[in-house]
């Protein structure tokens, strides 16, 4: 054996060196040398046994375990809310929030995405049975990364300040909040692995080589009308039919079966706008005056923190006519307080907003959200 070692031709890694002929020797054999070593040992009548079949497998397992442990240990106090995270990390953070604030926060599934990823919501509740509730979602368009990040920060904000922050406390004493951080998980995963600018779902479209439907043209509100495309290869393709996208259907089902959602709030980026219905038609909603007033108050509160200015108005007049949108559906369904935020910025970085702006964006957006939620609370 020593001869082997001195020869240095076959690279053997001795874990227990030869010392005494009575004692065993442990050797790690690189795969290419395996055959040669076996032949050598057998031809010299040296007994051997295999302790570990494949070291690499064990190393991988250990690495994964370490990562899992790190995550568990980190908890929400060490989670970096000022950074962009892949889907797994976000999902782990949801678990951590539910674990850290068990009397307030619980995690539920509302269904699966097209590619069978779970769609998790967080429920913030101080009790009661089926209290009136506020719905907030983010990331329906996967490339709008600041929205998922903002939603996660918001979850931590609500959870950690219940009891100390009077607004949050009074709100949650009367109403529940449901938060969907990643509305389009397939798209979000795709923005990490393949195409940072992916917007749509990842559903296969029969008869087309193109993939995906614009989930915010897929709702049952003026479906198929102006502002949505019939071309499957288009970024604003509305899909074969309303609610064809399982991600949309899951939200619709949840809202309908809950029965007491009082506000439907959704986050997009970018443009710095606060929008209310309608998008599918260019006429004002019946509640225009109230929604406009609430919107303006919210935009004002938002601007008070860092000076970020938002424009307020209906979707059609402020951004463009677009059919099949979520807040149009929720409004026509009967949820009066339906608002969509288009977060920072106004085009310099666009979808690629620097991570350093996540927390300032989340902090200011929170003030706007709170203004709306307080109005909802006071006007039930």
């Amino acid at each position, binding site marked *: 054996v020593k001869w082997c070692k001195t020869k240095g031709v076959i690279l053997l890694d001795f874990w227990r060196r030869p010392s005494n002929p009575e004692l065993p020797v442990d050797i790690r054999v690189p795969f290419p040398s395996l055959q040669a070593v076996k032949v050598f040992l057998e031809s010299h009548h040296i007994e051997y046994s295999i302790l570990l079949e494949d070291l690499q497998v064990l190393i991988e397992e250990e690495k994964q375990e370490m990562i899992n442990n790190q995550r568990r240990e980190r908890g929400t106090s060490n989670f970096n809310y000022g*950074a*962009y995270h892949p889907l797994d990390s976000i999902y782990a953070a949801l678990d951590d929030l539910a674990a850290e604030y068990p009397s307030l926060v619980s995690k539920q599934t509302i269904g699966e995405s097209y590619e069978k990823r779970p769609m998790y919501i967080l429920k913030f509740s101080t009790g009661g049975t089926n209290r009136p509730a506020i719905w907030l979602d983010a990331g329906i368009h996967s490339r709008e*990364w600041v929205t998922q990040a903002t939603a996660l920060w918001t979850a931590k904000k609500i959870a950690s300040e219940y009891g100390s922050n009077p607004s949050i406390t009074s709100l949650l004493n009367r109403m529940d909040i449901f938060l969907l951080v990643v509305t389009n998980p397939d798209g979000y995963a795709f*923005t*990490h692995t393949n195409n*940072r*600018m992916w*917007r749509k779902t990842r559903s296969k479209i029969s008869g087309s080589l193109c993939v995906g439907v*614009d989930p915010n043209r897929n709702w049952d509100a003026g479906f198929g009308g102006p*502002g949505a*495309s019939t071309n499957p290869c*288009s*970024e*604003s393709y509305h899909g074969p039919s309303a609610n064809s996208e399982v991600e949309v259907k899951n939200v619709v089902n949840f809202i309908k079966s809950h029965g007491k959602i009082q506000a439907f709030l959704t986050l997009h980026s970018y443009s710095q706008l606060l929008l209310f219905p309608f998008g599918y038609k260019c006429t004002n909603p019946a509640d225009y005056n109230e929604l406009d007033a609430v919107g303006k108050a919210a935009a004002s509160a938002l601007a008070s923190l860092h000076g970020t*200015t938002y*424009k*307020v*108005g209906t979707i059609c*007049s*402020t*951004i*463009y006519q*677009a059919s099949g949108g979520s807040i149009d559906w929720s409004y026509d369904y009967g949820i009066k307080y339906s608002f969509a935020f288009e977060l920072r910025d*106004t*085009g*310099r*970085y*666009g*979808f*690629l*907003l*620097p*991570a*350093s*702006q996540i927390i300032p964006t989340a902090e200011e957006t929170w003030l706007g959200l709170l203004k709306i939620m307080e109005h909802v609370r006071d006007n039930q």
Partner: protein
Amino acid sequence: MQRQSEARLGPLLLLLLLPLAWGKGPSPPRAAEELQVSNRLAGQAARVALHYLNYRLGSPSALRALGQVRKATLKTIPGIGHKYYLQFTTEDYKSSLNVGTCLATVFYLKRKPRPAVNINCTYTKDQKQIREDDYSFYKKMRQQTKPIIGNDIPDSYGNIEPALEPAWALAVAGSSYLMWEKSTENLGYFMAQVKNVKQWITKDDSIDFDYSVVLHEIPTQEMISCHLRVIWTPGHPLKVKYFCLSENQWSESEEGSGTESGSTNGIFNEKEAHF
């Protein structure tokens, strides 16, 4: 004091610019429709005017972004097109600080492919500093023995490597030409990302870059891939050639001043109060 001067500017602006509209033919003047400052078409037109300005100034250190629209008027000239009269504030592209106000007209003509822009702006940023910044970038690029290359600027997380920032700014200036040309009353653009930059080392005085850029098109939400060739010498008009994947041929900027489709009187280095 400020409000007074703004009020005077409004009617003055219309008086100054009405003859331009009439010059087209015997069509009688149409009533000008005042638009809300939050009107998206007004904002879009203001952006088009800024694309034009950024291209014409051809200075990576002097790029501007839209601040707030202060006043907007729309005139419909039957059979000819729509003309927007705009007053808006601007921000420095990099720092977001306010750098002055612009007056602009943006004329979307039915029979011409690109909008005609007239724009005048005040500028509160130090001209000397801009020239120095431009020149120092230019010098550094001229001194390269190995060509500058880069990918994904900004990257997925919004980061821009400081060494590549001037090359990114030059891409914005070059893309501004392309975005001005492609803009219509209803289609607007933002430069979303530089996918690729490669410098050409040249023997002449200019610096020369090849870019692949991705534009974000509104309201279609499409991401348009374009190739840009930008040739620049400080103080000279930017030379831009581009080819977008939906098109069949290269498009080029005009040599010289290119006053055909618009004009800018450059910039005044006056303080806001004097304006």
